[in-house]
């Protein structure tokens, strides 16, 4: 019966984070919780096939997983301490009493928040945070995560083992952080979700589906975060992801070549995602706690609202980049600001700003700096300089999609130059 398999798959994705978050709190162990949930899913596959689907699949799974968890904990206890048989009996009774209560009392609405903050704890490296978040909250298997990140499975498995053992041995708390460290800790959570999104967004035509699915998974995690913590920046992050995702299908052609925003077929942009993104940003901005993601989302919204590239409200984009520089000054933001100025106030003025930004040595080996500069030189018909800048950019990136784009531009400018002479 494919229906059971399909439902199970859907329930697995939807409920994994919620159930495992509770199991980890009850067992104090990622491993025991994972095993219990795994067993519950196996048992669901067998039972549902035979008896049909339960009315509330999530509750069914929680109950069974909890029973498996108690078994595992008891097993651990008897293994480590055979003498405490009495204690074990007493505990067994107590456990049964607890079990008699409904699932509602088992789960705590804060469990998933505890899990998110633990997975994204700053004492874990970013790569470990990402892997752990996908494994526990996303319910992806180790093999799926490895495939999505183009890594050998043992590398990914090792990363997860190390992270889980650090949580256990260094005793990283399973708690929602206190108010005074909330902003910082939330920033780490947002960064992890956005890293997952971008990884999927950069997936190319030849990539496997799991890799592209990372964007969808990141958006799902972004929704969970908004639901649990309705903070303006969380809405900003979700809006940004939706707006970028809306042109995922048009940012590359069928040959896997990069298509710039200007050249994309806007009729193929996903209107549902755009509308939701705009709605989110319109609700969050007036709340007054403006941050990085909200402004980036607002910029993406301005692009999304333009029916053609020519109708883009560049002065508005320049204003938003100015705001972004004010709260988060970085050479890359300044570079984007300069490019927007070029489109709104004149190419020469934009180029001047880019040269100014270029005095920052950090950008000398950054391919996007040279690509942005080359782009303005091309528009100004300064072909020779444009070719030189594109060539410099080409020498600084190994990404084959980006290299393909730069080569295309070089030959375009070279041909135009020949036509003129």
């Amino acid at each position, binding site marked *: 019966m494919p229906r059971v398999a399909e439902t199970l798959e859907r329930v697995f994705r939807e409920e994994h984070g919620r159930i495992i978050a509770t199991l980890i709190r009850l067992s104090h162990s990622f491993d025991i919780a994972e095993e219990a949930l795994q067993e519950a899913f196996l048992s669901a596959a067998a039972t549902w096939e035979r008896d049909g689907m339960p009315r509330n699949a999530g509750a069914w799974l929680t109950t069974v997983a909890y029973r498996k968890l108690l078994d595992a904990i008891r097993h651990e206890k008897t293994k480590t301490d055979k003498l405490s048989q009495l204690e074990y009996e007493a505990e067994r009774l107590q456990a049964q009493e607890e079990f008699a209560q409904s699932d509602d009392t088992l789960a705590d609405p804060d469990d998933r928040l505890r899990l998110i903050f633990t997975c994204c*704890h700053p*004492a874990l490296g970013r790569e470990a945070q990402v892997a752990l978040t996908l494994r526990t909250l996303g319910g992806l298997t180790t093999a799926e995560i490895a495939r999505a990140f183009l890594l050998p499975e043992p590398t990914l498995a090792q990363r997860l083992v190390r992270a889980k053992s650090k949580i256990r*041995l*260094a*005793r*990283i*708390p399973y708690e929602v952080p206190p108010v005074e460290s909330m902003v910082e800790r939330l920033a780490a959570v947002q960064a992890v979700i956005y890293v997952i999104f971008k990884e999927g967004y950069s997936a190319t035509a030849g990539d496997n589906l799991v890799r592209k699915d990372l964007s969808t998974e990141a958006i799902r995690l972004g929704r969970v975060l908004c639901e649990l913590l309705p903070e303006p920046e969380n809405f900003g992050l979700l809006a940004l992801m939706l707006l970028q995702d809306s042109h995922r299908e048009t940012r590359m052609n069928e040959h896997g070549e990069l298509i710039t925003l200007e050249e994309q077929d806007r009729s193929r942009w996903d209107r549902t995602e755009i509308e939701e993104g705009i709605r989110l940003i319109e609700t969050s901005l007036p709340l007054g706690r403006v941050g990085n993601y909200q402004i980036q989302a607002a910029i993406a919204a301005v692009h999304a609202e333009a029916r053609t590239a020519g109708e883009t409200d560049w002065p508005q984009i320049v204003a938003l980049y100015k705001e972004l520089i004010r709260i988060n000054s970085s050479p890359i933001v300044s570079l984007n600001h300069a490019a927007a100025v070029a489109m709104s106030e004149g190419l020469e003025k934009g180029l001047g700003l880019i040269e100014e930004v270029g005095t920052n040595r950090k950008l000398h080996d950054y391919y996007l700096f040279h690509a942005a500069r080359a782009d303005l030189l091309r528009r100004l018909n300064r072909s020779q300089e444009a070719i030189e800048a594109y060539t410099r950019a080409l020498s600084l990136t190994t990404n084959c999609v980006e290299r393909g784009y730069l080569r295309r531009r070089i030959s375009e400018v070279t041909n135009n130059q020949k036509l003129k002479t």
Partner: protein
Amino acid sequence: MKYILLIYHNEKTWNAISDSDRQQIYGEYRKLRDQLRDSGQYVDGSQLQPTTTATSVRVRNADELVIDGPFAETHEQLGGYFLIDARNLDDAIAIATRIPSARMGTVEVRPLVE
């Protein structure tokens, strides 16, 4: 749960600090120790003599090898430690951030095997 907070700093920078500044930092250290004692989190702690006094010992195939100097030449050197009792890593990190040398050097937080 016990954690050791290993305090690494640059000895050269530390030696270049004026006497009055150093006294002030020592004062901060004493204050932190007293606060940790009051909260019941202090187990042990000390400043270490500089790495110029360090000796490294290895035994290989029953041969003793005694070498002058610290375990490794690094940019920052182990200069002292606190042994503390903390509820979890977040608490240990919170204490580590209160160590004066965290402002100049690095504090490594390591749980003890218990």
